[in-house]
């Protein structure tokens, strides 16, 4: 290959790279904005500024809402998310356990399919943990649909629910759900201190 061609090729690469990177950079900053703030303390009004997208559409009302726990580009499997939530739940301070637990238990029982069973309901701080068993995956999915659809009577905060371990045909399946109070976020990244409020 002639030196001229190499120079032209290098120049073309540089121009293409500069053009594309220049275009990409501002978008990445904008996307990270809503997630940058730490989990708000429970006793204070969470500070939140509508991101730049709302400024471009001033005619649309934007709800004031809490900041989101800092997100990362870390890829988490369902099992890893469940482990992190379990750790956070284990470290959480005991809050007003009785009322939250009793109210949630009633709502969960109402949504539970006939052949499924409720093993435990426990609330600590802003997080509740629900453990259920299901005869098969279809009942688990029916439970999820009945429990977390918008019309459900379950508290409307963020939630995560998954089967524990690999489902085995013919064997009962155990599912664990973590439910966070409205206005809070699931402590997927924050495993210390964030729930001890």
């Amino acid at each position: 290959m002639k030196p001229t061609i190499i120079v032209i090729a290098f120049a073309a690469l540089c121009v293409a790279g500069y053009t594309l990177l220049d275009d990409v950079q501002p978008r990445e900053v904008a996307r990270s904005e809503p997630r940058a703030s730490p989990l708000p303390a429970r006793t204070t009004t969470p500070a939140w500024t509508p991101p730049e997208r709302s400024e471009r559409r001033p005619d649309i009302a934007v709800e004031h809402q809490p900041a989101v726990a800092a997100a990362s580009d870390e890829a988490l499997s369902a099992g890893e998310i469940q482990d992190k939530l379990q750790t956070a739940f284990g470290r959480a301070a005991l809050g007003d356990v009785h009322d939250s637990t009793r109210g949630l238990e009633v709502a969960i029982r109402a949504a539970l399919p006939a052949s499924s069973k409720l093993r435990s309901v426990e609330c600590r701080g802003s997080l509740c943990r629900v453990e259920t068993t299901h005869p098969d995956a279809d009942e688990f999915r029916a439970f999820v649909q009945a429990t977390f659809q918008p019309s459900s009577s379950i508290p409307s905060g963020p939630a995560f629910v998954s089967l524990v371990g690999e489902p085995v045909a013919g064997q009962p399946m155990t599912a664990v759900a973590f439910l966070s109070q409205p206005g809070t976020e699931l402590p997927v990244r924050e495993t210390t201190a964030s729930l001890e409020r």
Partner: protein
Amino acid sequence: MSNLAFKSLFVAALAATVFLPAAASEARNFPARSGSSAFHADADCWSPFGGSVTNTCPTPRHWYLPIIFDAPYFGTVSAWVIVEGQFLSNNVSCRMTASNMFNTAFSFSENSNLTMLMPVVGSPFARLHHVTVPDGTNSVVSVDCLVNPGGRVHGASH
């Protein structure tokens, strides 16, 4: 000369292959009409206007709107959901969901509720939803809205 042009084009194509995947992850708008009635039996309950849909049935109905994020996406993803109700009775509540491809793990955003805020009744209302993706690129993200009679879903964007 033609050889030089060919090689330059080849290099340009190579550069595009290297850089375009990074540039392809653009913000996107999803009109509600690109979704569907969550249940086929309710298909006749929706009146479209532009990209929006309005529930014309006398009882609340569910609308499903898939959200596309360019892979790879990990951690928490966010999207605006825009709804509208002329009166308090036209409430629309929405929740963003991320699930793995096996439907054995589900992550839900907080459930937004239009009529929780009186001043927004009668005008489009945007709420940012966040959800933790359970299995990276093997996940599916969607918005599920329970739309009261007269409630309208405009769409979602990220």
